[in-house]
Every structure is written in C-alpha cells, then in structure tokens.
C-alpha cells in the first residue's frame, strides 16, 4: 500500500476520496463521542464528574505517542529510500503530534488540579511527556534550519530515531515510578478495566482523535505536494524568460 501511494499523483487521487471520508467519520464520532462523554455516560465513583476530562486527555496522550511512532516510521522510509512523500508525512505527523502533546499536557494539568489539587508535578509521566513536547519542537526546528531540504530531511530523521527512546519511557513511567499519576487502566488486562459506561465514550473519542489525525495528515501532505508543484512550475516559468535584444 505504501509503495502504491508513494507516487504523488496517485496520492492526490487517493486523498480526493479519503480526505472527505475521514472528515465525515471525524464529525460523526465527534458528535456521538461528545454526547456520550458529556451527557450519556455516568460519573465516576472516585473522580465524580471530572472523569469526563479523561475522554479528551487519554486519547490526546495516545495520539501524541502514535504520532511519534508514525513520524519514526516515515523518517525511516525517508532515510532509507529518500522519498519526498515520506518527508512530507514525517513533518505533518510532527506538527500534529506537537498539538496533541500540548493538548495532553493542558488537559492533564486541568484534571490534575481537580484530582490531586495541583496543576503540575515533576513526576515521571509528566516530565517525559514534557520532554516529548520539546522533542517535537526541536524536530520541527531542525527542518526549518537548513536551506537544503534533502539534507534537513536526513538530519531530522536521525534526530527522530534518537528521540524514539523517550516513547517506552512515557509508556512505562507509571510502572517504574509510583507517583500521583494513575497506572495503566486500559491496557492492564488482568485489572478491573473500565466499566462499559465509561468504555463506550472512551473508545469513541479515541476513534475520533484517530480520524482527525488521518484527515489532518492527508490534508497537510496534499498541501505540501501542491506547494512543491507550484514552486516547480514557478521555477520553470523563470527559466523560460527569454532575453531579447532591443
């Protein structure tokens, strides 16, 4: 599938169909998910009404890490095969990931204020997510620093590989350091897990964030392809200027 979409023209054709589909899915799951999360689902025993922050906080955290994984895969493709579309993809994932990480930090901070009575705590989970935020910023700055985009892509990819060590740290930080942040609920299969009433809006919101991610990244890559095309035709026009004698 990757090699089929690697052709920019084919990708644009695919995007024309896929982009509105993902947008529609996003809107549908947003409506259903928000209704479920804010109105239909029950309040929690411990967290009371504040449990509803979970439906925006946890999916944002999951997207922040998923974006980084996607970014590393795209960087790998770009590094090995030097493909333009992989570069566009990697940069798009980084931008989206940066926003999701910021969202995760902000919502987490608000939830922390209600649950632990503090906006911020320097524990393993929060510090490592903050580090992820800085890694995204540094990654994007490496892109913008170099004039030669081919080289910038390689530098950025190398940086992305090194930054990958932060992802397992985020995942396991709650197991390694016991702190304010609660442990894994969803992926802990032996544990109690979420009740059905909480699970439905949670899964809806996760799906919703994922569709948003797909839609945004397709749109971003589409824009990059188009602007590259425009640049190329602009250069072609310049080379067509003829010098005529008076």
């Amino acid at each position, binding site marked *: 599938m990757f090699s089929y979409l690697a052709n920019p023209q084919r990708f644009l054709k695919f995007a024309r169909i896929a982009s509105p589909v993902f947008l529609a899915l996003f809107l549908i799951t947003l409506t259903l998910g928000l209704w479920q999360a804010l109105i239909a689902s029950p309040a929690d025993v411990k967290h009371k009404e504040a449990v509803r922050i979970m439906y925006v906080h946890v999916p944002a955290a999951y997207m922040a890490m998923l974006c980084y994984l996607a970014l590393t895969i795209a960087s790998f493709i770009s590094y090995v095969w030097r493909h333009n579309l992989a570069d566009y993809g990697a940069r798009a994932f980084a931008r989206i990931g940066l926003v999701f990480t910021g969202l995760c930090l902000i919502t987490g901070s608000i939830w922390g204020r209600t649950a632990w009575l503090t906006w911020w705590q320097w524990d393993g989970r929060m510090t490592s997510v903050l580090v992820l935020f*800085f*890694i995204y910023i540094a990654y994007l700055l490496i892109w913008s620093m170099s004039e030669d985009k081919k080289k910038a892509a*390689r530098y950025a990819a*190398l940086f992305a590989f*090194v930054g990958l*060590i*932060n992802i397992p740290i985020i995942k396991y930080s709650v197991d390694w350091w016991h702190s304010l942040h609660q442990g894994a609920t969803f992926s802990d299969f032996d544990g109690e897990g979420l009740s059905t009433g909480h699970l439905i809006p949670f899964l809806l919101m996760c799906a919703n964030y994922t569709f948003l991610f797909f839609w945004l990244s397709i749109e971003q890559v589409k824009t990059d392809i188009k602007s590259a095309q425009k640049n190329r035709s602009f250069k072609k026009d310049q080379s067509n200027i003829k010098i005529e004698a008076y």
Partner: protein
Amino acid sequence: MSAMLFRDLRIVYRDPRGWLASLIFFALFLSIFAIALDGEPERLAENAASAIWLGTIFSLMISFENIFDRDIQTGHFEQLSLSGINALSIVVSKMITGFITILLPILIVIPLAGILFNTEPAASAGIMMSVLFGAPALIAYSILSAALLAGQRNTGFLMILISLPFIVPVIIFALSGVASYAEVGFWNTGFQALCGISIIALTISIPAAAAALSTHLE
C-alpha cells in the same frame, strides 16, 4: 584514529582559547548562581549540585557548538573522507578530545566550586562522581547536536534545544544519586541509572552523529 586525536589535542594545546572559555564560563555561571541565591551559606550548600550540573551542561553546550567548525572551514573533513576515514572514527576522536579538553578541567575545578558553595568535602566528591558517571551521556548528546548542526550559523539556541530533552533524565538521576551519596555511598541507584543512561546514550548517539556528519559531507 590516534593520529587524529593527537592532532586535535595539539590544536587545542596551541590555541587554548576554547577550553579556557568553557572554564571561564563555568566559573562565571557559578558566581552568578551564588549571587542569585543571595550568598546564604545553607542555601548555597543545598543547591550546589544543581548549580554545578547546570554550569557543566551549559559550558559543554557552548564549547561543543563549534567543535566541527574549524575542520569544516579548512576542508579538513573533505580530506579525511577522501582518504577513506570513517565518520565514526572522526566522531569518537572528537568525543575523546572533548572529554579531555572540556570536561576534565571542569571535573578538576569542581572541588574548588564546592568550596565556593560551602559544601562538605564528601558532598563535593559525590558531585564529582556524578559528573564523571554522566560524562559519556553528556558528551554523546552534545556531539550528536553538534553533528546535526555542523556547518550552520548561530546554532547556540538550537544546540541547547536539541540536546536538552535527552539530558533531562541525566540531570534527574545525577541529582538523586548525589542526594543519596552521603548515606548509601557511590554505588546507589541514582548512579547506577546514570551509568545505564550513559551506555544507552553512547550506543545511540555515536552512530547517529556519524551518520549526520557523513550527510554533511555528501
């Protein structure tokens, strides 16, 4: 590789501005820190480890920022790569040079800084040990950022931004190791984790820095 190393060391020996600048920056940073803490002896002793660690990191960043610049400007790297020398050995030799000329002077003056910050000799020894254990990680991440930014202008801010995310765990474990040094001795969990981070940093950063450098030479 040893020839390259001796060449680098000879250059630093003949032009001592580089390592002197980092040492002077270290001294200035600590003095400013002490003044900012109002010069109270107890507060100084409390914050000595943090101040010395921050000073070490920033003076490392400042000196590593242009560690490749001279060789790029004079075309020395092109010559090396033409004669078939691996980017990996360039990176390793630069790291050893960096350790000898930048980190070693700082390690030597840490006891003096301890006097400035009114710490016990044992605590100074703990801080020195933490810098020594964290040194491979610090140098590995600094050389990685330097290689990623090789040949660019005005990279000071980017240098810090690129290496700081990776240096965060180094600082955390170093300071926890220093805190428990007094009771547990030097083989405590903080220092153990620091050694682990150093090994991971070396294995990841050296190949990445070498790849970045050969990208620059393409």
